[in-house]
């Protein structure tokens, strides 16, 4: 066996063990791009935070629902758009089924924006960028702006009277700042490709980044809220049965909790 082979085997084995145990590459494993990438992923969103089965007790309002509802609406938009793409650009003009699919695309976009705007306002009122969540806010708002551009190119791609009128009106704004020289709204071929490929790709990547950041940092706590003080000598139960039992105590309180709170309340805290 060559030294190169030996190194590869050693690196892989070491990397696997290291990555599994601590998430931080050491020694030969630091030379492995795979191990380093896996470690980066693990640091970005630690195991257990991707699909959590518990959430902070202060997450109680219905406004929180609009994040996941927006994501669901986005997937319906993508799905209806995919079906439209299968039929082709002119299909919906000549087919009743195609027209119905176009209708689902239109209304799913309306629902998507409705939910997204509520989600955005909700996060604004919570100042959800607090606690190192600025990038979460930025990816969300840029995705919002990107969605507007995607919807706009969709209206330009309808190949009907509406797209004729919108394109002839919109060209003036884009031309006035020099963008129209490169992004020609009077060219339906260019607009269709932006609509079905480029912009959905950008928005999709931003949505994935946004979700990763939400999972990594969790839901922003209320203003001035403080977590309960850690209990020395008591192991944090994490997501295990003890945590479930402790936090299912009826009437669980959200901090700030008084320093002299009862032992029962202290047992309900979960340090994750």
């Amino acid at each position, binding site marked *: 066996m060559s030294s190169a082979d030996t190194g590869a085997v050693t690196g892989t084995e070491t990397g696997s063990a290291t990555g599994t145990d601590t998430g931080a590459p050491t020694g030969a494993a630091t030379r492995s791009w795979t191990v380093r990438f896996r470690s980066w992923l693990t640091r970005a969103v630690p195991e257990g935070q991707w*699909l*959590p089965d518990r*959430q*902070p*007790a*202060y997450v*109680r309002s219905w406004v929180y*629902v609009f994040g*996941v509802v927006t994501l*669901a*609406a986005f*997937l*319906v938009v993508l799905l*209806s758009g995919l079906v439209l793409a299968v039929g082709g650009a002119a299909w*919906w003009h000549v087919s009743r089924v195609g027209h119905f699919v*176009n*209708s*689902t695309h239109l209304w*799913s976009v*309306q*629902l998507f924006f409705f939910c997204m705007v509520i989600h955005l306002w909700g996060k604004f*009122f*919570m*100042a959800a960028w*607090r*606690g190192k969540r600025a990038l979460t*806010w*930025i990816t969300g*708002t840029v995705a919002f702006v990107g969605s*507007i551009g995607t919807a706009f190119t969709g209206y330009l791609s309808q*190949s*009907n*009277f*509406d*797209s*004729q*009128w919108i394109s*002839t009106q919109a060209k*003036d*704004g884009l*031309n*006035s700042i*020099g963008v129209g*020289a490169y992004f*020609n709204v*009077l*060219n339906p071929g*260019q607009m269709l490709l932006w609509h079905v490929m480029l912009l959905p790709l950008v928005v999709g990547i931003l949505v994935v980044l946004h979700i990763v950041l939400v999972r990594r940092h969790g839901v922003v*706590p*209320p*203003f001035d*809220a*403080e*977590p*309960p003080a850690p209990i020395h000598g008591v192991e944090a139960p994490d997501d295990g049965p003890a*945590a479930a039992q402790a936090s299912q105590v009826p009437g669980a309180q*959200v901090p700030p909790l008084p320093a002299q709170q009862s032992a029962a309340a202290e047992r309900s805290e*979960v*340090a*994750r």
Partner: protein
Amino acid sequence: MSTATRRDRTPDSHLFPTRPYDLVREFVIAAITMVVLTVALAAVFSSPDEHAITLSAWAKAAPADVVATATAELAGTTTSAGYGAPYNTAAEGQKLGPLALQKWAGVRIPVDSANDLVISPLRQAAAGDPTLTNALATWTSAPVAQQASWAGDYSDALTKAPDGDPAKVAAGSYGPVPQLAASYLSLARTGALQSELTSGAFYPTDQTKPLLLLADGAYLEDQARAEHLGGDQWGMMNETGNYPGQPWMWLYTFWYQIPPFSTSSNADALVWGVMAVLTLGLILLPFIPGLRALPRHLGVHKLIWRASR
């Protein structure tokens, strides 16, 4: 306590008490709800689809407008003829303060309105038509000032004629322009003009020239205004019929409704400038002192977290 200090002191959400949560079930319920709502709205309300206006349909519905538009293209008085970048150098274009962004972007989609939108299509259709061939030869051999004079005079005469009817135009020295305009109308009626404006391409995807021509006429805007789509009717966010268009563009459309934007020749650049600043403000809100503290003072968060306090 300063805002920055408060932000920095926001604790890790994972340190707080938790309660059971089924993320997957929540998502599945949300997805089913969205699908049901989407299908129900599509089934009940459908979606609009007003047919595109073809150049042939335009010529049949408003022949006087086609003749007037072709004449104005020859006279160099249409919107596209005097547009500036990215189509030509006929105007400086709009500016955003000292920034001539429109001009700086250059003429990347060259359009010579008289030649590209009128003369060139006529030339392609002139084979076997000696009258049109002679008219084109007369036009081409004339000095530019003479061309402008003929077309300008004929354009004025059309404006004064009852209903803009070319048959009722007063006699005058219009050179070959009446013949060129009449042939142009015939060409448009046959539907051949549409393909000739897209360079006769078998797969025409770029409609820049047909759309510039259509927009230079009055017919397209008349139809749009009838559908409440005019620029001063919040048109950019509306849709034909009673369907929702792009209501999320309300703020962009709003600026066009009020001074100074509604009366400025730089309105588009100004509105885009304002929207760029506001959009950047939204994106960078976490870093803007004062604004980032606004939610705390508005107090809406008390409704969101009332069950937790």
